[in-house]
């Protein structure tokens, strides 16, 4: 029941988002067809604007857009005139999703063990080293990590390709560059969660019953400690799956992140609104999944 309500509530939310996105891109000065060179006659620009209904009042354009959406049509891209927004999503989203999923796997695969390890060795040098690395991963931005990775692995050692997205070899560096920040975050969150859990009463009770430290950590603390990571991973996945402007640019990956950013720079109205909606849908869906995962993981949580 609770989840059904949440899903129903998402519809008006998406409408509000679409109105806002639509209004904001139209408010920005300049339009999709403002170019450095003016056409030979002012009539030419009017022809183009008439073709894309940009000469109509904005509310009318919005309803025209909604009508298209209802038919599953995100409209034509105004910058990439040969393509529709549906084309852009169909071609870019799978690439971004694969990249994001690999990055997610990397972040989890590295972040969780590091978090666990540092928590288990709290106060010792391994804790300090691990925590330091985690903070480092969080602090160094992707546009520094990515070129460093390329420089080392691709230019210096010639082990991996410098860019493009073709074979599995091409899919090693970008997920690492993209996932490192999240790995650091997860390590910190998980360590924090473990520390808190270790101080809670049920752990003290378990310890009093004579449970070993190892099984305390693995069987009791972990389960509670992973909750902050789970709630963090919803928005994180939405972020990862919709692509990254910087990483896609640096590695020349044909994902969707580049379109979202360039779309707003180009005033490509349909692309910006369409991709914003896509992002919103993913975010809502993943948050819902996170809440659902809570009910599975934490017996104390129940939604009514």
């Amino acid at each position: 029941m609770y989840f059904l309500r949440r899903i129903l509530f998402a519809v008006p939310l998406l409408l509000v988002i679409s109105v806002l996105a639509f209004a904001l891109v139209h408010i920005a000065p300049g339009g999709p067809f403002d170019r450095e060179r003016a056409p030979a006659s002012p009539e030419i620009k009017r022809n183009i604007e008439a073709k894309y209904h940009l000469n109509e009042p904005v509310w009318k354009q919005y309803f025209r857009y909604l009508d298209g959406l209802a038919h599953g049509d995100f409209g034509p891209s105004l910058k990439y005139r040969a393509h529709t927004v549906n084309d852009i999503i169909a071609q870019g989203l799978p690439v971004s999703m694969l990249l994001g999923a690999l990055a997610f796997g990397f972040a989890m695969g590295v972040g969780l063990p590091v978090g666990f390890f540092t928590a288990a060795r709290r106060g010792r040098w391994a804790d300090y080293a691990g925590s330091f690395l985690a903070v480092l991963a969080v602090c160094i931005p992707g546009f520094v990590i990515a070129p460093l990775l390329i420089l080392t692995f691709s230019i210096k050692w010639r082990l991996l390709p410098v860019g493009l997205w073709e074979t599995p070899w091409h899919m090693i560096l970008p997920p690492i560059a993209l996932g490192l920040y999240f790995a650091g975050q997860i390590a910190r969150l998980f360590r924090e969660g473990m520390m808190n859990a270790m101080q809670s009463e049920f752990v003290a009770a378990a310890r009093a019953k004579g449970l070993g430290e190892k099984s305390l950590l693995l069987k009791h603390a972990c389960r509670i400690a992973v909750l902050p990571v789970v709630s963090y991973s919803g928005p994180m996945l939405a972020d990862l799956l919709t692509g990254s402007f910087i990483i896609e640019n640096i590695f020349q990956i044909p994902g969707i992140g580049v379109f979202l950013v360039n779309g707003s720079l180009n005033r490509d109205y349909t692309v910006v609104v369409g991709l914003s909606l896509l992002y919103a849908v993913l975010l809502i869906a993943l948050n819902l999944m996170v809440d659902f995962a809570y009910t599975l993981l934490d017996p104390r949580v129940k939604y009514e």
Partner: protein
Amino acid sequence: MVIFKRAAAGSRKSEVGKRKVRAAWRGVIFCLLLFAGCLPNSGCVRREPPADVTIINGAEPETLDPAILTGQPEMRIAIGLFEGMTRLDPRARPIPGLAESWEMSPDGLTYTFHLRTNLVWSTGEPITADDVVYSWTRALSPATASDYAGQLYYLKNAQSFNEGKIKDPALVGVHALDKYTVRVDLNHPTAFFLDLCAFQTLYVVPRQTIEKYGDRWLMARPLPVDGPYELVYWRLNDKVRLRKNPRYWDAAHTQSGIIDIVPITLPSVALNLYLRGQADVVWDKGLIPTELVDVLLKRPDFHRFEYLASYFVCFNVTRKPFDDPRVRQALALATDKELIVKKITRAGEQPASHLVPNGTANYTSPDGPGYDPVRARALLAEAGYPGGKGFPRFEYMFNSTPLDESIAVELQQMWLKNLGIHMDLRQLEWKVYLNAQSHLDFDVLRASWVGDYDDANTFLGMFTSSDGNNWTGWKNAHYDALIREANEQVDLTKREKLFQEAETILVRDAMPIIPVYFYAGVNYFDTNKIQGIYQNVLDDHPLQYIRKIGRGPSRLRSASARQGVESRGP
């Protein structure tokens, strides 16, 4: 994930717990399958022959529709797919294309083109004079909404038709006399008309496909083309793959079997891919990292070339104090252009004292004033601002690229030092900048112009009073008259004189602009491996001449041999 399982299993092994664990695992497996399902689409597994030549081409093409495209990255691909009455030789001069020959009437107003009789689309249907008429009127039709329709305004009634003032396409000055003859009527003699015929807007495009698929016609496969290459696929932001069109009339001379064109805009990425051998040619001029220009230009595979483009500063002459030509001249004289090209741009750009770049066909520019701070101060004093006293603060507007920013800072310093005037810098995002530029909402701004065709008119025409690209508010009836007269002149020497007179007004007397430098481009490819690319002022490179030579994987060579590629020179 393992931790989840253990944690869950560690709780009391009740039935509920087990069910939850199973549900969680099912979720995980479902997700994995979902992503695995995405793999084939995302190109994880690609079985395709390697390209003979891979070219890095700058921005992702906005479209490949010849009537609609406007940018150079698009043009460089379309040049391989479609052809016009004429085409460009590797040095960018017009030679016979789909038309085998033509005649011009003595008054220069009528061209009669004779099409080759063996022309077919890549799908086998014949190409006739009707296709030419269709293509040109389509580009002009308001419904096509072509940005560059102006390239056809030289035709009789073309502008009125494009503006919707006349509805009947038959009134436009292009007609099919018979199956292989096209007659073109012009408004006035146009010296560069044969160059225009090789321009993308005037390419001949497949009528049936366009009428069938509308705006989506480029997605049709097979896509009928009349150029040397067919479109195999076009993946957004990934790659455009072209394959030799065996039905092209001159297919015997097409040099390469498969060409991949990769869109990349980050110079460091382009350089990395090139250095690692993942690309053979990098040819968009912005694709050399500015920090490395000095080092890279010394390498034999980096080629510097001049092309038809100017960088200049525009005054808004409708605002004080820039309504006074003496002020404008003073600022121009106080600009050390030599320093800008030596210190900032560094790719071998030439400092400019006039607008039309050196090397433009049939034209030599009059020299404008050089760097003379003493005279500059005198002129400023004459205009009422001795030593810059009383000169209002003004703004210099530019868009956000590092190069423009450096130049802005340098100008600010120069003018303060030489004239004692204070300038504020106003950096704007591109679209905001364009908006301000077209609404004359600025004091002074940076501007640049790349020639559309190899002729002085593409630069001088834009400063006529009514031109949409005259970003200065400057209007001069005498200048307008000179340009008009020049464009109606058939005699090339007389035409040059008229243009020179006009440019003298522009860069010596009125000075609504300060020419700063002429662009230099850099492209890079190893001449020992790649042949058929020639530097030219338009920076256009017909694809059919390009080929890879020397050693390469044998698979590659046999692949091209199978496709009947001959390795004769162009």
